[in-house]
């Protein structure tokens, strides 16, 4: 079992560009959540997908959007990148939509220049 895998591991983008991050959940998990973690801070919840629909959302602007595919993998899209979007983006998967134990990927380090 490969666990939760995220790609890419590192990414550098220019302000104003768009970025897509990808996540494959742990085998048997159908719920995927995304988090943004700034340096020295705790993760901030972006949104959660279950059954291909966004079920919960944190306080993030519409520039942050996502998608879940039938195989439960997920994408996070960020449009019109700002310098402040530079962070570690974490994906987590869990079995079922009940906010139980989550398994995290190693994250994608996004740098906006």
């Amino acid at each position, binding site marked *: 079992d490969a666990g*939760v895998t995220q790609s890419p591991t590192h990414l550098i983008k220019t302000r104003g560009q768009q970025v897509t991050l990808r996540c494959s959940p742990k085998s048997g998990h159908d719920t995927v*959540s995304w*988090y943004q*973690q700034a*340096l020295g*801070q*705790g*993760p*901030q*919840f972006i949104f*959660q997908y279950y059954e291909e629909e966004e079920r*919960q959302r*944190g*306080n993030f602007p519409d520039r942050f959007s996502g998608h879940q595919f039938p195989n439960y993998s997920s994408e996070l899209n960020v449009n019109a990148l700002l310098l402040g979007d530079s962070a*570690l983006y*974490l994906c*987590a998967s869990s079995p079922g939509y*009940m*906010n*139980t*134990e*989550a*398994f*995290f*990927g*190693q*994250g994608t380090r996004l740098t906006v220049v």
Partner: protein
Amino acid sequence: SQQGEEDPQALSIQEGENATMNCSYKTSINNLQWYRQNSGRGLVHLILIRSNEREKHSGRLRVTLDTSKKSSSLLITASRAADTASYFCRANRDDKIIFGKGTRLHILP
């Protein structure tokens, strides 16, 4: 900010001592979880305590939950060098997931 609060922000103790860190949150919850993060990478789940539980143990970990005070504590007994990491609490309810800002624990040899 949607983040909970943890204290202390940083903690340094000698190997073998016990480490206690606290977490406070603002809303009612279904459960609260503690996670460990090494070197800014992925988080590892440590323990989950439900809102109707007051204390839970897992190996060297002991977690307490006081829903009246909206707070939780994580105790690591007989600390080891490998326990050096950041520790986060995650408060969960049906419509919210809130992480604390974390406690950076450093175990001194």
